[in-house]
């Protein structure tokens, strides 16, 4: 199991040929109270960098981009009723979607936990 991060603050936690995608703890803190999440439909094919979901705080809407290319195989529909879960547990129950990777080598271009920690420090 490896977790990788994008500079747009998405994470992907890879298990086998699929990965769980969400937003980082830093991102949820910056957004503030999440009040709405729009998820993609299961079966949708995404290219790395595509707009995959929308997360809205009281103040504004933000896009969540696909950290890798692949097919959406599952979404966290709990977020429709409890969007605040993204704030409470972004790395756990606040996940957005599960993507089956089509190109595992794309992970190499993403940051490790340690690199992401340094990145956040450099921008905050």
């Amino acid at each position, binding site marked *: 199991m490896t977790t990788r991060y994008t500079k747009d603050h998405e994470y992907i936690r890879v298990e086998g040929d699929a990965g769980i995608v969400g937003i980082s703890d830093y991102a949820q803190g910056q957004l*503030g*109270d999440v*009040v*709405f999440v*729009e998820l993609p439909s299961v079966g949708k094919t995404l290219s790395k960098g595509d707009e995959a979901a*929308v997360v*809205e*705080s*009281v*103040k*504004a*809407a933000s896009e969540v981009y696909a950290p890798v290319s692949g097919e959406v195989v599952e979404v966290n529909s709990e977020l*429709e009723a409890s*969007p605040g879960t993204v704030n409470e547990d972004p790395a756990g129950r606040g996940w957005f979607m599960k993507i089956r990777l089509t190109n595992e080598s794309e992970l190499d271009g993403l940051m490790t936990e340690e690199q992401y920690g340094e990145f956040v420090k450099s921008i905050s």
Partner: protein
Amino acid sequence: MAEPAHSDEPLLKTPLHAEHVALGARMVPFAGYDMPVQYPTGILTEHNWTREHAGLFDVSHMGQAFLAAEDKSHETVAKALEALIPADVVNLKPNQQRYSQLLADDGGILDDLMVTRVGAPGHEGWLYLVVNASMKEQDYAHIQARLPKGVSLNRKDELGLMALQGPSAEAVMAKLSPEAAALSFMMSADVQIDGIWCHVSRSGYTGEDGFEISCKGEDAAKLWRALLADPEVKAIGLGARDSLRLEAGLCLYGHDIDTTTSPIEAGLIWSIQKRRREEGGFPGAARVQREIKDGAARVRVGIRPEGRAPAREGSVITTPDGREVGIVTSGGFGPTVNGPVAMGYVAKDVSAVGTDLHLIVRGKPLPAKVAAMPFAPHRYKR
């Protein structure tokens, strides 16, 4: 309140800036000032606290100024201002406050503002104005250029201004100034709180009962702390101020009203008293009177999206069959409503409460209905 300043300009600080930083606020540029958008508990908690207890807002960035007649006559100063705004100023009682708009010659709104007839002895012929932070330079220049001889504009940038809003506001104020706590809606008084001179009015912009308190800048931090010392009071940032005023159906200048909208289109006819509607004598009176008589072609309405997705400012409004009929001017999540709320302008024929509309959000039509405003009931102390 409107647009953020250009980021390359140095930001101004209110007299309460250090208080916000000490409370751990997230500071953002707003109207040229470095302002708290939220404190550590976040916008939802702050919003709900204000509706259930009392919130304290720093609004010192707003423009405070006095108009004064040399001859110390209320009528002189009132007539001078009536030439610029559609409210009845002449018939204001001492210490009475009114909401109004500075109008352009075509009836467009240059800014909205609060006007109070100063009641303090020795200040006969004075009006107290509060204008939007983002508009104050333009407003002052506009007013200055149009004042008759014998009436002067004195801006008071050194004053602080805070708002105490919520159902507990009266009880909190009663402990500090029973006189201020006894005020009725849109009335004001000059009082002492903890030895500090304050001008207190029974008003605000959240839909809740509450007070706006002006004081000298150097006293602002002491007063802020005295108010926050009450366990019913918490500091509230601009984020919750926006969601509170949106639920209250109140206009935000630069968004819901601007130079392209008239007070009648904006549904602000209640702020134009009968005498002024009939007599006119303010900029844009011809348009305003025509729109009162014939109705405006488009009007500001409340809108409730049917799902959970908020529709933000700029979302296009269509009929269910796709005819474009308007645009959203404010929209977001209403914590008290516990759902998305919006306001915007629509063509008159689709403005009735209950009319089905679509809001175009991220390219997709979102079903919505015209809804009565306010979304959260006003709880003013009449």
